[in-house]
């Protein structure tokens, strides 16, 4: 293990250009500076340098919460670099999992998250008062770890659209939790410190809008309007409130009571982080040239994805004739539903084709098989062979990376199916536990001969929003086993586990073990030696998806 000190400062110089253009916390936009790749350059950068404090830590880490506007300015050891990064990654993964299983900020969520903070030595207390009897790192030290680990992960997660999106989502959730935990006085201080200044409306305007304001939000009563300040915020700065229609919107401005200002803050955080990541990505080549850091950063970037089933391992092992029976035995409910709709209607809309088509690719269908499969089904419907070849074949080849940017698409994970691309009129995709009417879901399960007690167990889980657990229960019931012994997060994983249970053979088991092992190694054991990194399958995936979406509109 290398113990050479890493000059974080020299690393910092490399990321420095990334932060040059960031709006700072302490007073609006920084004027642009030329990037300097030297130590002195770094020091010259901050024109408004604070005096060197007697206790720099208190100055820097005096506040429980920050926007991560300023990168760390110190040296750390390589082992600290690694530990901090891995710990934060674990924290973010916990946040991701909790976010799917529990309502955010609910009691269970908060309890579990706080436990994780404690285990990993991350700060969670608004006050930094250290009681002398405490063992382990002080609150200030934890805040320092929080600060540094955030910036390290930026380096790892700025590289592709997918990684950025994931990182931002978890950091925003983390921020939301911490901001929520601040006592009201500190919340106000935070706002002022960070220059979130919006106009308030005067009393007359409040009076005239009273009805509209009260009717726009469950949390706003007549008293709220009277007592609190209402801010007029451009709607672009309050997208979450607009999206869910939780606020009054007039002529492009939303009217927000002081109590709801957190959403604005979150939005601001998200925007800043997004911009920062884009800038960081541009400076990355310099960081990658350091061989000590590059492998670790690569591993961090891949570890979260888990197995993405993008590399086809069983190509050709499945024949088309098997699909009907497999759909009943080994497909998760979402794919079974899609398959059935396809057989019944001889057609699937774009969302369904993507979700199901990529799944089939993941279980091992070759491109030729896929083309034959879709073609033979579509022809039975309203599409003639010619039209299929013209319009649909292209998109299937696209899925296999044979057209356009030639990116190999990855099959959708449960998270993706549940959270994005909700089905609308005419669609059959999505997650049935999330998107189907409970009544229709019940009927479907009855049709598939799930026992009544099993169905009620599933519906309970659905009610609690535990969609993946519901699917796992469905797995257990349809395979007649007590305990699934795996944590479901991907439809293809469902398929593989199912084949295992049904005696699919040792090959599949071996494959699962190696991939799981490599995934775990990447996260917990830390960097040991150069390892072959899996193909960078998700380069600009989201961008590609958008491209493709715009290209294909259903006829």
């Amino acid at each position, binding site marked *: 293990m290398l113990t050479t000190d890493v000059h974080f400062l020299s690393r910092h110089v490399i990321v420095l250009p990334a932060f040059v253009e960031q709006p700072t916390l302490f007073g609006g936009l920084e004027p642009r500076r030329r990037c300097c790749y030297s130590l002195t350059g770094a020091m010259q950068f901050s024109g408004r340098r604070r005096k060197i404090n007697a206790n720099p830590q208190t100055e820097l880490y005096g506040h429980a919460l920050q926007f991560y506007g300023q990168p760390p300015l110190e040296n750390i050891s390589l082992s600290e670099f690694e530990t901090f990064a891995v710990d934060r990654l674990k924290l973010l993964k916990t946040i991701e999992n909790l976010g799917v299983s529990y309502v955010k900020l609910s009691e269970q969520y908060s309890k579990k998250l706080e436990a994780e903070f404690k285990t990993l030595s991350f700060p969670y207390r608004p006050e930094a008062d250290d009681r002398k009897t405490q063992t382990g790192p002080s609150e200030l030290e934890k805040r320092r770890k929080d600060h540094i680990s955030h910036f390290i992960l930026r380096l790892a997660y700025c590289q592709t659209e997918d990684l950025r999106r994931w990182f931002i989502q978890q950091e925003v959730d983390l921020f939301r939790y911490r901001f929520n935990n601040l006592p009201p006085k500190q919340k106000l201080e935070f706002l002022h410190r960070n220059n979130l200044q919006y106009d308030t409306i005067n009393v007359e305007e409040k009076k005239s809008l009273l009805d509209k304001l009260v009717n726009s939000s469950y949390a706003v009563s007549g008293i709220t309007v009277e007592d609190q300040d209402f801010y007029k915020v451009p*709607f672009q700065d309050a997208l*979450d409130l*607009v999206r869910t229609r939780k606020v009054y919107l007039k002529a492009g401005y939303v009217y927000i009571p002081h109590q709801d200002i957190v959403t604005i803050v979150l939005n601001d955080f998200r925007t800043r982080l997004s911009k920062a990541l884009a800038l960081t990505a541009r400076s990355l080549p310099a960081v990658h040239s350091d061989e000590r850091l590059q492998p670790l950063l690569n591993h961090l970037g891949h570890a979260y994805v888990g197995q993405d089933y993008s590399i086809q391992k069983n190509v050709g092992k499945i024949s088309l004739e098997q699909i009907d029976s497999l759909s009943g035995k080994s497909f998760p409910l979402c794919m079974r539903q899609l398959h059935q709709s396809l057989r019944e209607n001889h057609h699937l809309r774009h969302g369904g084709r993507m979700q199901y088509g990529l799944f089939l690719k993941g279980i091992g269908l070759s491109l030729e098989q896929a083309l034959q499969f879709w073609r033979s089904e579509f022809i039975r419907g309203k599409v003639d062979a010619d039209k299929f070849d013209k319009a649909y074949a292209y998109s299937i080849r696209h899925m296999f990376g044979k057209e356009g940017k030639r990116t190999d698409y990855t099959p959708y994970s449960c998270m993706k199916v549940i959270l994005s691309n909700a089905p*609308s009129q*005419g*669609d059959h995709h999505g997650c049935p536990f999330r998107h189907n009417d409970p009544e229709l879901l019940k009927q479907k399960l009855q049709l598939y001969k799930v026992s009544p007690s099993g169905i009620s167990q599933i519906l309970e889980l659905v009610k609690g929003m535990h969609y993946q657990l519901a699917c796992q229960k469905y797995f257990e019931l349809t395979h007649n086993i007590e305990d699934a012994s795996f944590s479901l997060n991907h439809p293809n994983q469902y398929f593989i586990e199912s084949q295992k249970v049904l005696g699919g053979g040792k090959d599949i088991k071996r494959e699962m073990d190696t991939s799981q092992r490599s995934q775990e190694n990447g996260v917990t054991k830390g960097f040991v030696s150069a390892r072959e990194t899996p193909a960078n399958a998700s380069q600009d995936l989201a961008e590609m998806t958008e491209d493709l979406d715009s*290209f294909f509109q259903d006829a």
Partner: protein
Amino acid sequence: MPASNYDQACLQDLLPLYYKRLFPFAQYYRWLNYGGVQKNYFQNREFSFTLKDDIYVRYQSFSTQGELEKEMQKMNPYKIDIGAIYSHRPNQHNTVKSGTFQALEKELVFDIDMTDYDDVRSCCSAADICSKCWTLMTIAIRILDRALREDFGFQHLLWVYSGRRGVHCWVCDEAARKLSVAARSAVAEYLSLVKGGEQTVKKVVLSDPIHPFIRESLTVVDHYFTQYALQDQDILGRKESVDKVLALVPEDVRKDLQQDFKNEKKPETRWKLIEDQAIRKQSTAKKGQHFEKEIMLQYCYPRLDVNVSKGVNHLLKSPFSVHPKTGRISVPMDIKELDTFDPFAVPTISLICEELDRPRTGEEDEKSEDIKDKENEKDGAERRKIRDFKKTSLGKYVKYFDRFLDGMARSWKGDLLRKSDLQKEF
């Protein structure tokens, strides 16, 4: 007005004529150039063409109006789509370093398609439309137009008939063009009330408090509901329709209504019974009490495709493009005349080509108008072009488009002045 018989096979012959003498290039360029306030705005705009035999070409871009005209007259596209304004000229995107070619701006757009209402209209399905279900488009336009203007503060909205079974909205305000993906998606979500696919029976669920936006939308739906839903669509007439409606009310209420309906057959009265039940429930229950509103919205509220509105780089059919299946021109719609808009009266390409040879009555007045024409860059060919679409049924739509552009031009003027002030040019 009867449209000349249109046959898709004629398209090959009609398109050259259309692009040569009828397509309003001057107005089109005036629109997409946006007053020249931003550099290279027109040059960096992506167009895509669908040519004969379904050949599709993307990343077309043009330096000037003249180049656009020439290319279109050469290629005679069957369909034209407009995309985003990119960081570089789209037709040079292959020469740009990968990752730096990006879509920067585009109008905020909405696409309302009649097929998305198939579960709630009984008169037609799929690509068909009729005067009965067209009301759905009228309602959609009224609701969205109001919301985009009053709630979001947008001013320059261009509504366009797609040529077959829907309408598009182009929000051309500068603020709209600069919206991010997240913002577009938020706007679309705000405007969405009907949610769920094949597997969802109840697609609209309201809870207290009822947001002002929903109230305003209900006011619009209310205006059309009796005529459209109770009479034209007869949703409370036939048994299957009635069952579908009653599937949307709470179970206890459903039983009562089924009982009442045995004796009451008149749709208007049946609806009153539903409303009364709802009022009763609203004074007692905390959940599921707004079912009468939910029914109205499920049957009438606009259904948007969020994906169309979300993407900055999404390609959408261009105004004045021809719809190959129907031959109709995608014409801008004058909202002031919305209630009398008839999609079947929209001119087809065959009609207007025919009208080119057949002089229309009233051309005498139009000739004198031309002399008074204030446009000063027009040469002989241009003047002929103006006369040409004025000769045809397309004329009134181009005129309306002009008025729309005039409205925007006032804001461009202000922008240019501000810019030149900043640069201290006089």
